[in-house]
Structure formats: structure tokens, C-alpha cells
């Protein structure tokens, strides 16, 4: 099965929550030096709830789609709920099987999110 499924390509070509926030309560960036991918992430928390999230940067189809799907999922969730998200969650979210090299692409946005919690 190709990993370039409709849902992945749709989020890659039309990423949700792409850009930056005007006044984020927190921001961070992560990178994968082996492929040069960089993801910036801005969030606004109100109390313990994540109210706003945006991501920016350069990446492959998988990392971009993963960031798009993840940011969509995150809105309205609490800090505790988001801390529980792991590798298995990302695989389920994307709905594809990824080899050991490409799984890093899918996990990059999650790494950014976890740095903000």
C-alpha cells in the first residue's frame, strides 16, 4: 500500500493551521538535520486548554500532513490529554504504515507539541 493515501495528500496540499500566531503563549521549533526538515509551532493555552495552534516550516508530505492532522486534533484538548499522545497515536492518526526512516517524519510535529506542554 502506498503511503501517499488521499488523506495524506489532501493535508499535504492544503495543510490546516499552517502559519504563525500573532501572540502565542508559547512557541518552539524542531528539526531533523538528516533531511533538513524544520517545524515551528505556536500555541495559545487558556488555562489548561489548548485553544489555538499553528505550525510553519519546510517538510516532506508525511511531516506536513502529520502536523496538519495533529494540530487539527489538538484544539480544545487539555495539557494532560496531549501529553499522552505517542508514536502509536500518530500512526493511527495518519492511517498508514511507515518504515523506520519515515516514522521520524511523522513524529517531528509531535516532538514540537511535546516541547510546548
Amino acid at each position: 500500500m502506498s503511503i501517499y493515501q488521499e488523506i495524506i495528500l489532501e493535508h499535504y496540499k492544503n495543510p490546516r493551521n499552517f502559519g504563525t500566531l500573532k501572540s502565542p503563549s508559547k512557541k518552539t521549533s524542531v528539526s531533523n538535520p538528516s533531511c533538513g526538515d524544520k517545524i515551528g509551532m505556536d500555541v495559545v493555552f487558556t488555562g489548561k486548554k489548548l485553544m489555538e495552534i499553528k505550525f510553519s516550516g519546510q517538510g516532506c508530505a508525511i511531516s506536513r500532513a502529520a502536523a496538519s492532522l495533529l494540530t487539527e486534533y489538538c484544539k480544545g484538548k487539555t495539557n494532560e490529554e496531549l501529553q499522552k499522545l505517542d508514536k502509536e497515536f500518530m500512526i493511527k492518526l495518519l492511517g498508514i504504515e511507515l518504515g523506520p526512516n519515515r516514522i521520524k517524519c511523522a513524529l517531528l510535529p509531535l516532538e514540537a507539541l511535546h516541547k510546548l506542554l
Partner: protein
Amino acid sequence: MNLKNIRKDFPIFRHHNALVYLDSTATSLKPQSVIEKEVEYYEQYSANVFRGIYKISERATSEYKKTREIVAQFINANKPEEIVFTRSTTESLNLLAYSLGRKIVNEGDEIVSTIMEHHSNFVPWQQLAIENGSTFKVINVNNDGYLDLDNLKSQMPASPAGRSNIKSAAKNSNLEKLKQVITRKTKILALTYVSNVLGTINPMKEIAAAAKKINPNIMVIVDAAQALPHMKVDVRDLGVDFVAFSSHKMLGPTGVGVLWGKYNLLQEMFPFNYGGEMIQEVYVDRTVFKEPPLKFEAGTPHIAGVIALKEAIHYLRSIGLDVVRRHEMEITQYAINLLLSEFKGQLRILGPRDVDHRGGIVTFTFANYHPHDVAQILDEDNICIRVGHHCAMPLHESLRINATVRASFYIYNTKDDVEKLVEGLKKVQKILR
């Protein structure tokens, strides 16, 4: 030997019928005879070398020594004792940084390398300089992918380098800028013969001569990992001091590297690893080391691998390196032409346009498609290419590119492979557009 039926010598094509292998710059495929030679050692005389006073050990020792002779002949070394077996090109170069570098480079001295190096011929020198307070200088590349050594934009025709039919980047034959980099303080010039990204064939003989003219004591160290498998290399004709290369890129087994050095220089260097087989006499307070090459071959070597390297050289010789080179030039030219005509304005090829100055390597960027996506989609059709920075991050940084796509060719590749690559790239466009 005819290259037409050559694929039947490579058993991997029987296991993967539709394999389009375009990553020989990373490692080459292996012919049956090399695989069989390695099995022969394990099945028939799998004893340790040098010490056994019994027949199978003597057989192993004799096969091992024979390889040293064959390698010496293959690169026209002065004698077999100038050939040191290591694990890899990387280890050969690290050996030099340790055993030579720490002997001759002191605080205030200079080491010169280039921006197009593989990390293995860059980091050991950079780290040596950081460690001992010497200066690490780096020669840049110009927009055409040549070393930036020429002040005058000379239009001199390419001239044959050495005895082979290889023409190197003789555009740089003026080499004026070398004087700005190399001084009397420069102890080491470490550079690659063929860039593993740009494909550029550096005018090694001319550079070595020019460097030694500025400073007769300079040691010229050549990373020939991408040269040896593809073209005739005559180490004496090059006028350099050390040459490093790997077995696995020239049809041989992984785990075997070669370091060639002038014998008197090898004698003067520090040992590298201490241990078995590199020692003459050991006392509680002192040790007497063996002479090169054994001085640098502590521990049981990769005996099967070394022995099978002999078979790889035999195979390459039976084809003829001039045939190998001509085949690669033809296929590289075909690839460059086809890629540029099929993907006008979408695809940018790095490195020299002239295949006279270029090995069988075509590295490119493709629209704004991420190289990892390109590789993944090509893999769906069993097309193996390499993406990333190819262990040459300083070069990519200098070109302001994160990652590139690289297709590389060897004797078993055909124009059909190039056409499949083009079809694959069209599929990439279709999916990601």
C-alpha cells in the same frame, strides 16, 4: 567482456527481477564470483592468517597476501607492503588523521581540505585542528561545481589526466588560487578525487603538483572511494602521498578498506591500533612494532572480505576500466539530457555539465518536492536512489540546499534504468502536484 549480459553475473537481479539500482555511489552490487570467493574461505580454509602452522591457515595467509599484491598492481603501487587493509575508506582516513596528523601537524600549522568532501575526509581534519590548535582551511566550489582554484576564467581544453582516458576538470588547470590557500605552513592537503554529490572529477595530478610546488613538504591525501571503482587510478602517476578507498564500492565485500601510502611515510607514522599481529616483541616496559603494513593491521582482519576483494579486482580488470568509464560517461550523458528535456525548468542538476569532468553521478533537486517523498514514490516501483545530504553537509550548506536526490550508475546499469527513473519522476509529479 560485453556489458550487455553483465546483469546475469549479479544474483540480486534474480531475486529482484525489476530492480532499478541507482545507488552504486553508496555501495555497489556484488557479482557471483565475489560472493563465491567469500563462501570459499568459510567453507574450505576458514583459519586465521599468519600464525597457523597448518595447511588451511597457510592457504588463508597465501590468499590474503595475494590480494595485497593484486591491489598493489591494480593501483600501480611501488610494492605490496604499501597496501594497508582497513575496515573502510573512513577508517583509512581516520588512521591518517591519527597516525600521520598527530605526528606532523602542530599548533600554528595548517590543514587544507575542500567543501565538497564526504564527512569522512572533513571531520577527522577539522577535529584534529580543534584538538591541537592548527588551522583548518576549506577550498570552496564555484557555481559550476568545480573547486574554486582558478582566478582566470580560462577556456583551456580538457587535457587527459594520467595514463587513463579520464579527463578531469582541467578548466582549473591554472590553479592560481591555490597559492592563496596553501602556504609553507600547510602540512596536509586532504581532498576527494571524485565528489560523491557533484560528481566532479578533480584534476588531482595537477593539484598535487601545484601544491607541492608551493610547499614541497605537504602531504597530499586522496579520498578515492568514488574514483577507484570507475576509472584507472595510478597512484604513482598522480604524485600524491596517500590514497584511501573501499572494497564495497568496487564490487567487493563490505568491511574492507584500503590505505595506500608511500612506504617511507608509513614507516614514520605512529601505529593506529595496538594489539595482535602488529607487534614484533613486547616487554613489560616497551614494545617493538612490526614494519608496515602489519604495523597498522592489529587484530584479526576481515579475511574473507580481503580475499574476495581480489576477485572483485579480477572482475573489473576482465571488463577493463576504460570500458567501465566509457559506459558510465554514456549513461550519465543520456541521463542528464533526458532529465533536463523531460522536466524543463523543474529539475536542477548540480555539478559539471561536461561528462568528461564528471563521474557516473547525477544529483538534482526536483521542483519543490521533498527528496524523501521522491525516494519513497520511486521505491514503490523498485527504483533505488539516494536522498539527503549524502554525508556532505558542508557542501549542501554552501549551496543553501537542505537535501538532494542522487542517481548513480555502474556497469550493470542501462539506459532502460534511466528511462524508468524518468517514468518514476513523472509519477512523483502526478502524485504530489
